[in-house]
């Protein structure tokens, strides 16, 4: 498969990259690892005029601890994150999620964490070849007015299948978006629009620069369900964070539950998680209840568009959340 034609721009510094982005805006796309972008370009889903490569921008590749935060450069490769002791110990869910991304030989050395967060939403009806799509009317995401995944839907229901984003949202991560002469920090949970066509609240002149993961203690876990263990996207995934009470080490003080691959963005389920406050780490009954509640909430968003039947995926939400909670609790006890 040939790539469509484009002009290649290779800035040497972040400022140069932001300059180019400010000039070309919608016509340009950022190329980091290329494992998502180039595939979409080959399928004709995207035909940018310019690609701005981050190859020379080593300044965006780092993992460091500052105060109570872990700061990760957006161009840090998936392999570096898996290899990091710091992330393994203090942001376990992220480490677990990165291990599941793609396969060692595809994503881990080329793929980046920034690219994983910004990987575009997917749908069985949209992520197809030019030929396949040419046989019928365009869907919302393809510029038309039809949704093949949900009858009579007035909007795109594509699914966010990012492993990294689900884990990071559970960890309460923030992201730094840079543009020429300006920078803003956004809570990852507020980074999503409810529109599957353009799922991210990022401007065309902005670049994802850094991910800030709070590391104030607590234990986290990530679980996912996919057809295959490698080179596959999750069809259900869950990330959880349990924070323990300072006085009593076996009591949950605060919890976060995030369910991924069920909607246009990872779903942050605050109400379901709050039911765990004050519960014991050994209280699997409470975990089960929170997991079932998560399933009920997530089911309202799900659309049959990423494989497996909807009923199965919904039931598995409960299982994935339950397993993640159990794993996080076990980690906290250890």
């Amino acid at each position: 498969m040939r790539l469509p034609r484009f002009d290649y721009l290779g800035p040497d510094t972040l400022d140069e990259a932001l300059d180019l982005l400010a000039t070309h805006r919608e016509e340009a796309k950022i190329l980091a690892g290329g494992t998502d972008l180039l595939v979409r370009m080959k399928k004709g889903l995207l035909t940018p005029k310019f690609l701005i490569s981050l190859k020379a921008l080593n300044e965006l590749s780092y993992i460091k601890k500052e105060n109570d935060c872990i700061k990760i450069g957006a161009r840090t490769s998936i392999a570096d994150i898996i290899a990091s002791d710091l992330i393994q110990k203090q942001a376990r869910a992220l480490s677990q999620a990165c291990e599941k991304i793609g396969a060692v030989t595809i994503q881990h050395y080329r793929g980046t964490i920034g690219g994983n967060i910004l990987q575009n939403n997917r749908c069985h009806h949209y992520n197809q070849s030019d030929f396949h799509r040419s046989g019928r009317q365009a869907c919302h995401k393809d510029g038309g007015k039809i949704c093949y995944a949900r009858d009579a839907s007035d909007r795109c229901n594509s699914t966010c299948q990012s492993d990294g984003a689900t884990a990071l949202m559970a960890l309460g991560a923030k992201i730094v978006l840079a543009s020429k002469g300006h920078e803003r920090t956004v809570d990852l949970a507020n980074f999503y629009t409810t529109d599957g066509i353009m799922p991210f609240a990022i401007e065309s002149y902005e670049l994802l620069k850094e991910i800030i993961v709070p590391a104030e203690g607590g234990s986290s876990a990530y679980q996912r369900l996919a057809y295959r263990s490698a080179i596959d996207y999750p069809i259900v995934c869950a990330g959880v964070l349990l924070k323990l009470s300072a006085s009593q080490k076996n009591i949950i003080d605060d919890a976060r539950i995030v369910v991924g691959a069920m909607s246009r963005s990872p779903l942050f389920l605050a109400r379901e998680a709050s039911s765990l406050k004050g519960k014991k780490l050994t209280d699997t009954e409470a975990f089960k209840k929170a997991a079932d509640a998560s399933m009920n909430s997530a089911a309202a968003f799900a659309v049959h568009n990423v494989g497996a039947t909807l009923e199965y995926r919904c039931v598995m939400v409960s299982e994935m959340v339950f397993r993640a909670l159990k794993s996080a609790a076990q980690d906290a006890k250890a």
Partner: protein
Amino acid sequence: MDKIDISLNINDKPFEVRVAPNDTLLEVLRDQLDLTGSKESCGEGVCGSCTVHMDDKPVRSCLTLALEAQGCNIKTVEGLANGDDLSDLQQSFIDHGAVQCGFCTPGMLMSADALLKSNPSPNEETTRKALSGNICRCTGYAKIVEAVCHAANPHDRCPDCKTDNNSGE
């Protein structure tokens, strides 16, 4: 969208090529340099038959722009053997019957070679994980995993598979 002159370092030899921005490394290797060991199959990073090393790390050449490969040490399957002397891994593939139609073999060899560099005697589980990004449509995985696990046992007779090796002769 002009073509650009670049130099690529492939199998420790410098090559001067003229590439378009949208040429992938795989296209340059196969179409311009006649290094047709790396295969194109899916073209979207799923099957692994185009795997090459960039700075000793396995990557998909079908998802790597030729322009981005500048300044890296690229190694293709042609660079594994030393002249007519096959590498231990290649010999092991032959000894263990790990080649069927052979289309996935270059990719398998490159992924396995990268694994063996970091872990000279991997167990079955590690090997399977390292090769999880490569697909063999003949489904001859068992032999391939065996070949990689036993690549450290040089040449003709591997003690673990002795009966297998002898049975065919």
